[in-house]
């Protein structure tokens, strides 16, 4: 149990992705089964303890602390698990359970009526850091800055296998993943996935650069629009239907409308999109209403109807077609999609072009604003997991740009500690600046030093790690910001949120008064 608590403490304070992976690798090496597998499940969100809920945690806290003192403490600390773990009285209640396995065993056998006594006794026997870990485990949502994907990456590095192999297996596995660890350590053969409708690793593209295009032969490629939705995989197998994200997370429960229509045997690769009232593809912000939900209301399904624009086929019936060339897969896909409800499935049709210039013209004038650019795929390409070179390219539209004014700067972490490296910028509304986004890359180390000096020399106010920087009509720093689109947002004061903003140029020469106005951004929205 101590090892798991320490892992959480370390992960929460580690910024760097590589260091997080190192910490996980060390844990996998030093920890035994089932503890290490349970730790993975805690991170990937695959543990479920139905009889322990936040309300129970609060109830226990009110038994050990004056409610007013608890309220003041919770106010100050800001996290329930942390407050309870710290405020819990020290008692000599006997030996702490040694392993995460023992703790999970106790908690998973608890019923609604025995849970309070079991949890109380457990908290009595653990130290503050372990209490925190147990409460986080029990209530879910670790919030330690480690995604399921990162945990799988660490597993892949642990066994020196490709992450695709882990993702492909994942849905057939259950905690504590003993067979998986045995394989990764070379002690047993690769587990055979027994789950129906498993995820298969997806094929990814490279960004097309001018060099790729120099040698481009239009006869060898097909092209289709790149839609701004999320990449999914829809799998039907023996009556089981599953909808996966591109990293193999099962998102079926959030899309009952899609799942209901998945009356097929096979594995379809495509883009998940939402239709607007007029039947056209709605912007990404509409799709966002449906994402990251465990379940979904009938109202949301009605207001934001989802559909899949299919572009590839991995399995046709029970036949694995990944090795076939693209046109043959497309042909089979067309036939399959023709049998499915049109409202939920359609095809990403090929674009006709004869020359690179024609393709360039298509890219610059897409028929709908939701199109991000073009996908260009080699006709003779098989479906290859991962990001193979030279087969699929994405050729995005040039980003949109605005000139904005630097308003706030925040200190960076790691290699950038000591530098103000995260910038909030704004545009004019009347004669005031309203923040429209935040960017922390797109500049060189030399430029960073120069902006950092500008921030230090022109600080108006400081709030902890943030400095407010002088920005008025005559004086300030103008940043040219590139971004991939705008969404309406109720969370931002400006009513607008930018997608993937980054700094494309520093405009030391430009007076802030000449930066863009909010009206310009609003016009880009429609």
């Amino acid at each position, binding site marked *: 149990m101590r090892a798991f608590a320490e892992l959480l403490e370390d992960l*929460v*304070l*580690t*910024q760097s992705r590589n260091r997080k992976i190192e910490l996980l690798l060390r844990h996998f090496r030093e920890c035994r089964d089932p503890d290490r597998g349970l730790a993975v499940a805690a991170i990937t969100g695959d543990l479920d303890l139905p009889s322990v809920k936040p309300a129970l945690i609060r109830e226990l806290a009110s038994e050990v*602390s*004056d409610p*007013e*003192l608890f309220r*003041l*403490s919770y106010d*100050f*600390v*800001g*996290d329930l698990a*942390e*407050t309870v773990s*710290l*405020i819990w009285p*020290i008692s000599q209640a006997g030996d702490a359970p040694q392993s995460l396995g023992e703790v999970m065993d106790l908690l998973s056998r608890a019923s609604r009526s025995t849970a309070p006594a079991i949890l109380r006794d457990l908290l009595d026997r653990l130290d*503050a850091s372990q209490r925190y870990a147990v409460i986080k485990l029990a209530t879910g949502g670790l919030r330690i800055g480690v995604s399921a994907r990162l945990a799988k990456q660490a597993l892949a590095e642990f066994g020196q296998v490709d992450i695709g192999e882990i993702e492909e297996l994942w849905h057939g596995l259950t905690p504590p993943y003993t067979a998986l660890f045995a394989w990764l350590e070379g002690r047993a053969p690769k587990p055979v996935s027994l789950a129906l409708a498993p995820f298969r690793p997806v094929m990814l593209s490279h960004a097309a650069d001018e060099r790729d295009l120099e040698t481009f032969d239009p006869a060898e490629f097909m092209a289709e629009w790149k839609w701004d939705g999320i990449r999914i995989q829809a799998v039907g197998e023996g009556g089981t239907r599953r909808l996966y994200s591109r990293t193999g997370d099962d998102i079926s429960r959030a899309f009952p409308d899609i799942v209901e229509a998945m009356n097929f045997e096979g594995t379809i690769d495509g883009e998940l999109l939402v239709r607007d009232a007029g039947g056209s593809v709605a912007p990404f912000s509409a799709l966002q209403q449906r994402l990251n939900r465990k379940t979904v209301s009938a109202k949301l399904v009605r207001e934001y109807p989802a559909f899949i624009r299919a572009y590839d086929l991995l399995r046709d019936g029970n036949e694995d077609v990944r090795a076939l060339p693209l046109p043959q897969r497309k042909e089979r896909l067309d036939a399959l999609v023709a049998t499915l409800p049109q409202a939920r499935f359609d095809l990403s049709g090929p674009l006709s072009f004869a020359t690179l210039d024609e393709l360039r013209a298509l890219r610059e004038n897409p028929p709908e604003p939701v199109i991000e650019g073009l996908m260009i795929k080699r006709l003779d390409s098989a479906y290859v997991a991962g990001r193979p070179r030279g087969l699929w390219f994405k050729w995005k539209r040039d980003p949109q740009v605005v000139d904005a004014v630097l308003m706030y700067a925040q*200190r960076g*972490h790691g*290699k950038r*500690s*000591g*530098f103000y490296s995260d910038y909030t910028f704004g545009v004019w509304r009347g004669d005031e600046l309203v923040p429209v986004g935040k960017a922390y890359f797109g500049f060189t180390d030399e430029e960073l030093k120069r902006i950092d000096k500008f921030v230090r020399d022109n600080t108006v106010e400081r709030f*902890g*790690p943030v400095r407010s920087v002088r920005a008025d009509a005559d004086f300030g720093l103008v940043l040219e910001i590139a971004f991939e689109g705008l969404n309406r947002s109720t969370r931002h004061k400006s009513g607008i949120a930018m997608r993937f903003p980054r700094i494309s140029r520093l405009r030391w020469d430009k007076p802030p008064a000449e930066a863009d106005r909010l009206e310009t951004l609003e016009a880009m929205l429609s």
Partner: protein
Amino acid sequence: MKAMRPEDLLHPTPRGLYCPPGDFYIDPVRPVNRALVTHGHADHARAGHHSVMATAHTLAIMAIRYGADFCEKQQAAVLGQTISVNGVEVTFYPAGHVLGSAQILVEWKGIRICVSGDYKRMPDPTAETYEPVLCDVFITEATFGLPVFRHPHPALEIAKLIRSVADFPDRTHLVGVYALGKAQRVIRLLRDNGFAGPVFIHGALKELCDYYEASGIALGELRAATVAAGKTGDYSGGVVLGPPSAFNAPWVRRFPDPLIAFASGWMTIRSRMKQRGVELPLVISDHCDWEELTLSIRDTGAGEIWVTHGREEALVRWCELNQIRARPLHLIGYEDEAE
């Protein structure tokens, strides 16, 4: 004759706590004629008063910080010896906060009020040991006045730092410490717990470390952290100490791949760790935790508690629950971030 009230002896003013019969202030935040100073931290000990009474260590620390002429008249108070100021009896008692820190007991016409300044009860070889003072009114701070604060033994915390230096010898361990008290305590903890590697210090810590050393508190060999552009090897196996303000300054850029540690009672709280970008939190505090605060209140036997700064609402609540009269003083000018 009207009965004396404690407020007649000592009450808050915009300049700080004032004693009308003695005509002096305790830890005034603005220049005054006569100041009694509990300890050398900048929010309590300020320059510009006419006369200052404090322990010899505190006077010396003020001279280091503000120059020898920081006031017109200095008077050294000896711990445990009573001095009369305009008929009011004043005694300094050790507070255990930093070197020279004192509580000030003010007695007049049978009323005893103890102003504790900042204090702590954890063992610390770099400060005189705290003594409880019996009094009618106890004035206490409440920086860590919430039941979530429970400071671990400092030896356990310093062991984390020593272990990390051994585990990650290639990374520079940068420890944030305030220049007076925390810096010297951390160095001494390192030494007392067997750390023999080099300790590098930021220039802002030097004079106070020299002063501690001259006062008989051995800190071992200290080197200046002045290598202009450090290479990985320059600080490896060592520990670098600097004031937190330096972590936002260009100074920090000389250390390749730094591992940021911070020694403070705030390091109990995860959001504070993350806010400061701390990878290695060290809960080493020169203030009392919740248990120490409430124990001290009981030890003084005081019937009335005045709370100066920090989480005063919670400490007042605890007093109420324990049938002790208490109220917040709402003094301004004292910081609890700097700990």
